[in-house]
Structures are given as structure tokens and as C-alpha cells.
């Protein structure tokens, strides 16, 4: 019997038993739906996190920190040397210092970041176009940038109201960031930086945060930076440049390191989900085999009849295999369709709230390639198992069944 005709009668048979077929496939539909939805959401979330990480840093930036044991620290000479490494075209210095911030008679402890203006671009922090965080040579308050967390702390619920205010800042020098204190063996020293004027209030972080020009901190005794961002002009030079910097005794890292570990975490989650999905589908297949078993025993007359009129075992086996392919294909498509509908719905809801709150559109639900490949392979294996099972079972049904009178 030709294959096209077998496909036709397999289809007619299944559509004749629509309800029974749907019932048989329900476990599989549910399994595929949950599998697709969870892996799709996990993949989408993973992509969002990775995108955000790449956006917040730079894939061309090498983060340089002092050596593990602290023997090589980042002073101004080291910074200059890093800047001179082949392949590095720019550096951004960053010193994280404890400090005090005073306004209107009130004082609070804050974390101060002594940075240059390039730091903001690097960290994807947008500043108003006319704002420059650089030491002014004129006799006027120096520029200072604060975050909205700090402005709220001082009672400014509307951040822009804090703009232009004159404030005072001190930094706390320690042995870790000052060579002088190290040499004098003094644990810490509070240094007044003088008067500042708030030039920008940024939405970045919840805890109070203050940004001061790096040069001012250096002039007041800061010797060692916490870290340096070394920018490479060509990403392909990144590894070589990192090795050169590490040869100076310093520790380096790159966003790719964090990205790969984040991706690894999401990959492990994906694997767990795949395993759970496969387990679920195995259970669904076992129940499907049970349903097929009773289905085949109910179809003894039909199969026996086909053998009676002379259809051979091959023809019957192929017909049953085609029915299984239809059933599993239908289950897969329906499961994926339901999962996609839910995923798209969740995506729409998520993005609605995200955009309402000023964030960009992110695709929350994406079907990952490896899941699709695993799905296809599972589909093939499943059909081989089911076809073999039906073949084996139908072989035991003889033509005699088709000659029975009842």
C-alpha cells in the first residue's frame, strides 16, 4: 500500500476518533507546553540579564584591581603604566572612598567615588549634556554629582530641587588608599575637601552615593585607586592586553567573565528544566503507551480485518506509525502553541509594566535553539519508541481476529 494512502487513512482514522486521540495526547500536550514555556522564559530571562550586563559595562573594558595579596597597588604611576600598555587606548580611574557629606547643617556617611567623567559613559549612566565632573580652576565650589538616594535623604523628593545646592564633603583616607598614612602608620585620617555644588542628580542605585572629581581626591592625599577600567580599541586585543596587565602583578577581569558565569548559571537552570521536561515527557509517553495498549486491544478487529484481506504487517505497522507521528506532531504543535500564547501574554504584560516604568522593551519569552534541537530529537526518539511498540503489539494480532463473528 503506498505511503500517501497510508497517511490518508491514518489521518481519517484519527479524525474519526478525535476525542479519544485528544485524550491520548493530553499528557504529552501538557508536558510539551510546560517544557516549552519554562525553557522559553528561562532563555528570555537569561538574555535580558546578559543584555543588561553588556549594556552596563563595556565588552572592551578590562577591570584592573590590585594584586590578590595587596603587594601591587594601583597608584598614579601604575595607572600611567596601564594606560601605556599596547592595545590600551584609554583608562578610567575609580577610587571608592568612605566619606562624609554635609548639607544645611546635616551630615551623613556616604560612599564616595572619585572618578573622571568617562566613568559615566562606561557604566551607561547618562548625564545632562552640560554637566562635567572635572576640577574647576576657578575660585568657586567644585562640581559634585549625587544620586537620588542621597537627595531624598536630605528631604528632596524631587531630585532636580537639589541641583545647584552648595554642600560640603570630607573623605576618610586609610592605609589602603593613602601611601602617606601607610608610611606614617596612621590608621585613618579625615580630610576636608571643601565646598561643592551639586551639578547633577542621577537615578543610579538606592543607597546614597556621591561622585567627586578624581583629581580633587588625589590632591587631598588619595594615592591608590580601587580599580581602573582599561579600554582596548580592538576587542580581539583584549586577551593580550589582559595578559600584559597581569604581568604587572595586577588582577584583571572583564564583563565576558561575568557574562560567561551568568550564562553558565542560566545554562544549568536550562538543563534542570530540560531534565524536568524530559522526565515529564517520559511519564507522558508511558501513559500514552498505556492508552495505545488499550487502544490497540480495542482495534484488534480492525487490524485483524486488514490482515484478513491481505494487508501485511509492514503496511499495518507503517499505518500505526503514521498515526503516532500525527498524534505526537499534533501534541507538539498544540503544546508549543499554548506555551507560546502564554509566553507572549506574559511578555506583553511584563513589557507593559516595564515600559510604563521607563524601561526598554525586552523579549521575555524566547525559545532557545538547544531546546528546539532537544525537542526535535525527543520527538524522533518518541516516535521510534511508539512505532516499535505499536509494531510489536500489532504483530501479535492475527488475521483470525478479523474473521471473528463477534
Amino acid at each position, binding site marked *: 500500500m503506498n505511503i500517501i494512502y497510508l497517511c490518508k*487513512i491514518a489521518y481519517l482514522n484519527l479524525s474519526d476518533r478525535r476525542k479519544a486521540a485528544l485524550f491520548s495526547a493530553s499528557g504529552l500536550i501538557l508536558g510539551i507546553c510546560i517544557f516549552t514555556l519554562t525553557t522559553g522564559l528561562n532563555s528570555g530571562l537569561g538574555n535580558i540579564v546578559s543584555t543588561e550586563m553588556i549594556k552596563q559595562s563595556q565588552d572592551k573594558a578590562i577591570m584592573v584591581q590590585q594584586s590578590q595579596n595587596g603587594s601591587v597597588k594601583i597608584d598614579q604611576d601604575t595607572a600611567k603604566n596601564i594606560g601605556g600598555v599596547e592595545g590600551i587606548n584609554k583608562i578610567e580611574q575609580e577610587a571608592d572612598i568612605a566619606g562624609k557629606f554635609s548639607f544645611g547643617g546635616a551630615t551623613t556617611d556616604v560612599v564616595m567615588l572619585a572618578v573622571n567623567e568617562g566613568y559615566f559613559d562606561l557604566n551607561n549612566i547618562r548625564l545632562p549634556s552640560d554637566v562635567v565632573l572635572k576640577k574647576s580652576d576657578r575660585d568657586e565650589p567644585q562640581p559634585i554629582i549625587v544620586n537620588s538616594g542621597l537627595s531624598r535623604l536630605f528631604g528632596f523628593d524631587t531630585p532636580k530641587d537639589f541641583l545647584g545646592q552648595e554642600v560640603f564633603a570630607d573623605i576618610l583616607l586609610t592605609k589602603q588608599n593613602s601611601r602617606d598614612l601607610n608610611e606614617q602608620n596612621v590608621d585613618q585620617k579625615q580630610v576636608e575637601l571643601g565646598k561643592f555644588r551639586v551639578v547633577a542628580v542621577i537615578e543610579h542605585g538606592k543607597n546614597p552615593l556621591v561622585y567627586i572629581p578624581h583629581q580633587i581626591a588625589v590632591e587631598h592625599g588619595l594615592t591608590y585607586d580601587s580599580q581602573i577600567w582599561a579600554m582596548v580599541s580592538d576587542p580581539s586585543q583584549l586577551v593580550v592586553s589582559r595578559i600584559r596587565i597581569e604581568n604587572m602583578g595586577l588582577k584583571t577581569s572583564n564583563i565576558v567573565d561575568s557574562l560567561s558565569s551568568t550564562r553558565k548559571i542560566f545554562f544549568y537552570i536550562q538543563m534542570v528544566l530540560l531534565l524536568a521536561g524530559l522526565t515529564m515527557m517520559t511519564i507522558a509517553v508511558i501513559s500514552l503507551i498505556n492508552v495505545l495498549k488499550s487502544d490497540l486491544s480495542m482495534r484488534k478487529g480492525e487490524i485483524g*480485518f*486488514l490482515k*484478513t*484481506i491481505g494487508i501485511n*504487517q509492514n503496511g499495518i505497522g507503517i499505518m500505526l506509525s503514521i498515526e503516532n507521528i500525527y498524534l505526537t506532531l499534533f501534541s507538539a504543535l498544540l503544546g508549543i502553541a499554548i506555551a507560546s500564547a502564554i509566553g507572549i501574554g506574559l511578555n506583553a504584560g511584563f513589557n507593559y509594566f516595564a515600559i510604563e516604568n521607563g524601561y526598554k522593551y525586552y523579549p521575555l519569552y524566547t525559545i532557545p535553539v538547544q531546546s528546539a534541537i532537544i525537542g526535535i530529537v525527543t520527538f524522533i526518539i518518541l516516535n521510534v519508541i511508539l512505532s516499535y511498540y505499536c509494531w510489536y503489539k500489532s504483530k501479535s494480532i*492475527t*488475521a*483470525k481476529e478479523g*474473521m471473528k463473528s463477534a
Partner: protein
Amino acid sequence: MDIKEIVAHDSNVALIETVGVTKLFDNYGNHITAVSDVSIKIETASFVAFYGPAASGKSALMRILTGVEKPDIGETLVKGEPLYEFSEDKRAFLRLHKFGLLTQKIHQLAYLNVEENVALPLIATGAKERVAIESARKLLDQLGFKGNPKKKFQYQNHYQAKIALIARSLINNPWIVFLDEPYNDLNNEESDSLSKLVSKVNLDFRVAIVVATSDPVYLEEANKIYLMSDGRLINFDAGNSPVEKLKAAMSHLESVGRNMSKENEHHILV
């Protein structure tokens, strides 16, 4: 000889021959003899009837003759070749190409309509569906099918359904058509018509007919009648008229201590 050669072989050898076939069934440890030491010959284009009461072994013998059930003892030959030395698939090939079957129960594919069911064996031989359906329609017309061939079997009356099943058994131009209790579920008028149709098929299609029946009324057309009782076969000289045949059958059954059914007694009295 290969099964394909047998199918293509046109010789004067008996179509089907059994030599001392016996079939036993196990019934909870007790052996029941369904067919006992049966030796028969079915010639090309002959009309053979197996007549006997229910459970006399007719259906079991039909299954043996059609290659569906292997006998425990004895040999079944098709065109002189031992049928059961061929594999199940090869016997299926023979049934598909050269045997037609009408079983007691109306077996068909419920999801196909009448003409598709009739065409099914022809499609199974590799014919194109369109061609097979066309042949099925012609055959149904030729046999006087009055139902709607586009509708499924469930919408046909029993008589029309039986005609369709005969058409299906003839679609591949078989050597022989086996009919197991073809007159069941029919009224007298329909049974008479079907009996005439079977006889017509025998003559017009030059196809051998083997009927298993417990109704003696429809033995008239047969040119060889085997009486079956308790799995045994008694070949008797049936005489010329159906009444003579019936009387011979009756007297034999009485001689072996078996009675005909009340219904059949009525037929005999008429």
C-alpha cells in the same frame, strides 16, 4: 515455488486441496476438535457449500482454507503448493491477490465510505486510489448495489452492506471467494436475492465460491455440498434437486443423532 509465481501460475491443478486436516482448540485444558481429518478439493470456478449446524467446524475450516489459521495435522495446498509453508506475510499476499472474503461480521474500516472500503484491497496492491475507486464504483453497479457508495457502512442496510462486501472480495479478480454465513441478519427475500447474486458471481466472474452456511435453503446453487458435523466432513451425493439435497442432509444428521434447528425444519416442510 514462490508465492508470486503461484499467484501468476495458471494450471489445472485443484485451486485448494486439504489432506487430512485437523484443528484442535484448547478449552481450559480440554482439547476440542474443531476440524477433524478433512480432505477436500476445490476446483476453479466451482461452487462449494459447507453445510452444518452452528459449531460444526465450518468457520474453523474456512480459516484453514484462507491461510489464516494453521491446522495442527494435515496439509493445505494451494495450486499444489503447501500453503502453511509460506510466511504470514506471504499468505496475506495470496489472500490480497487471489482470495476474496466475506466474514460473518461486517468488518470494514469505519472511517472510510463504502466505495473506499471496496477499493481498499485494490489500493493495497499498489493501484492508484482514483483508479481503484472507479473500479469499485463499476463493480458496485455491476452487482446491483442500491445504497449510496459515498456514505459509510453504518448508513447502509444489511443487504446492501453484504453486496458491498462481495464487491470488495471481487475487486482484485480473485480465484476464489469465501463467504462465511452470508445470509445471517437478512430476511428471506434478501437472502434469496443474495443467494442468486452469489450464483451469478460464480458464473459471470468465473470465480470459485465457498459458502459456509447453516441454512439448507441456500444450497441449491452449489454444485458440491459438504455436510459438516462435529468437525467432520461428509461428502454425499446430493442428487439433482435442492429438496433431495436437503433430505440427504437431514437423514444424515438424524443418523448421527443431530437435529436441525426449528427454523430449518420449517424450510424443509415448505
